[in-house]
């Protein structure tokens, strides 16, 4: 029954997205062209990659506020490395981005499990720490277009089999996330421990190991997103993607991922990303100030959680479960 409800909710979101797209399309037919669809997909790809990482964390009742800082720090590191070694292969750079991101994420996981600290506070701290580290690494300088490694710049502009490379990256991440959460033991355990951490410990799930895994994966995906972001916008600076963590969390919440843990699907979260992408693309087309985007996301978050709460009444939770849950 619960399964049915969540499925219905996701398709409802898709219907809403379709209605918005069609509504805008009737006023501006250009909105419903393949080209525009690809633009939306391209713009949403990086967000989708970040959302998959954030969803894993949210499923465990955690939160990762450091993703945007991680993205910017890894992006800056890759830009600096690319500037120093212009001959470096892009595959090596991608591996470096994944490694740096994973390292930064694992620091979160290590602090949270090693000292039994609340994720929201740890990632609040690393959010500032990583952001400052960018300034230290770059000495405050911008790395602009001419200094960005050709491979990094070329990647988001490449097209494989008619689809932009960014979309392929996002699809790959989506597929991997689906397989991981649906068919892998570790993935199922993440749902279990988010649903009930105490029970998860009793049935023998290695909770600290799983938590370290999700924060490392979230970091790794943020690292990949950092490389792609720097390539797409051809610039790296300290304030890159500042505040983007809230957009990432917003996409998750709109997509039906519960902050309370244990509830959320790859499909739903993808629709959440798509929703934000469609709204962003639609506003300029119907000549509404793009400044509305943030207010609309906010309103949609509130509406979707309120609707969720109505269909599934449960007692209010504290911001975070009390200590001992993760131990």
């Amino acid at each position, binding site marked *: 029954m619960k399964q049915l409800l969540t499925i219905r909710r996701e398709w409802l979101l898709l219907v809403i997205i379709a209605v918005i797209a069609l509504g805008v399309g009737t006023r501006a037919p250009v909105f419903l062209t393949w080209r525009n669809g690809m633009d939306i997909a391209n713009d949403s790809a990086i967000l989708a990659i970040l959302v998959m990482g954030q969803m894993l964390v949210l499923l465990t009742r955690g*939160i990762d506020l450091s993703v945007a800082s991680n993205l910017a720090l890894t992006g800056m590191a890759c830009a600096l490395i690319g500037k120093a070694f212009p001959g470096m292969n892009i595959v090596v750079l991608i591996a470096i981005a994944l490694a740096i991101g994973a390292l930064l994420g694992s620091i979160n996981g290590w*602090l949270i499990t090693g*000292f*039994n*600290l*609340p994720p*929201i*506070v*740890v990632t*609040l*701290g*690393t*959010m*500032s*720490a*990583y*952001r*400052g*580290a*960018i*300034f*230290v690494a770059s000495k*405050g300088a911008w790395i602009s277009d001419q200094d960005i490694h050709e491979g990094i710049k070329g990647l988001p502009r490449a097209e494989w089999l008619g689809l932009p490379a960014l979309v392929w990256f996002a699809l790959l991440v989506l597929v991997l996330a689906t397989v991981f959460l649906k068919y892998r033991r570790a993935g199922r355990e993440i749902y279990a421990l988010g649903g009930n951490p105490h029970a998860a410990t009793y049935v023998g799930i290695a909770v600290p190991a799983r938590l370290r895994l999700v924060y490392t994966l979230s970091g790794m995906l943020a690292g990949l997103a950092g490389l792609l972001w720097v390539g797409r916008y051809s610039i790296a600076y*300290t304030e890159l993607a500042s*505040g983007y963590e*809230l957009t990432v*969390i*917003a996409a998750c*919440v709109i997509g039906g991922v519960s*902050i*309370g843990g244990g509830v959320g699907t790859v499909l739903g979260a993808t629709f959440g990303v798509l929703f934000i992408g469609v709204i962003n693309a639609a506003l300029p087309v119907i000549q509404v*100030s793009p*400044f*509305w*985007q*943030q*207010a*609309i*996301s*906010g*309103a949609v*978050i*509130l509406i979707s*959680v*309120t609707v969720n*709460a*109505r269909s599934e*009444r*449960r*007692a*209010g*939770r*504290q*911001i*975070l*479960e*009390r*200590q001992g849950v993760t131990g």
Partner: protein
Amino acid sequence: MKAWNIWERVLLALLVLLLIVFGLTQPGFMSVDTLADSTFNFSEKGLLALAIALLIVCGEIDLSIAATLALCSLAMGYAMKAGAGPWAIVAAALLTGGVAGAVNGVLVTRYKLPSIVVTIGTLSLYRGLALVALGDQSISGYPEVFSVLGNSYVGEVIGVRWLVVPIEFVTLCGFALVVGLVLHRTVVGRRIYAIGANPVAARFSGIEADRYRFGLFVFAGLMAAVAAIFLTGRIGSTRPNIAMGWELDAITMVILGGVAIEGGRGSIVGTVLSVLLLGLFTFGMGMANVTGIVMSMVIGMLLIVSMVLPRLLKSGRAPA
């Protein structure tokens, strides 16, 4: 639940240490004028921190508080444009803050939603509305009295020249005293702790938990309005990105002040000491020509260290 515990002593020691170190290394730091001027940089954030401290002790959080501040500042701008006098402008700010807080409160208490999700939503909504209303414009030309409120010293206003304490800072101290007394010396305060420590038990003990939660959210909105009045007065204009990201600064102040994010523990004394510590630290580093972003890095690490250390010292046990 004591207002004066180990952590407060540690903070006080750190504060003294900080004054000594900056006093010795930065010529001019230890003068009365410099210290008085330094308070301009953290008084408004301190006001937000007081409200956040109460909410976190109660087991809730408000991420929308800085966005509420922006909305209040916007309301002041519109009130001024409509030809309102200073009192009406203040009333507009307070009304907007109160309503914004009440919206959070209703969503949390009436619909039983987790406050972190609600306030992420209202953060986007409030900040978004400010952006929609102003775009890339700003509103300026506020009455002189607001500039005085934000930039002047108590001594100037009452005619005692040696009293170089900014009005903002006096206001912060006043609110800190009231909030501290309420939390630590009244039944209301005890109940806030009780709700934060165990909401279910608190409800069974006959505490109207939801009424307290709602009240605290409205209070947070009102404090955001007060901070908006001072900040708008101090910088003399309303911009849509006013106080951007301050919610995280205020939460950092509160957590570093020893308030447990799980609720039920912490004190206003610790919060105030932490506001002073972070404020003076930022100011002193600024005098030493350290960039703001590096300071926020240090503060971020400080936040983590301040949580890791007590746990290391107590070999894994939670701090008292």
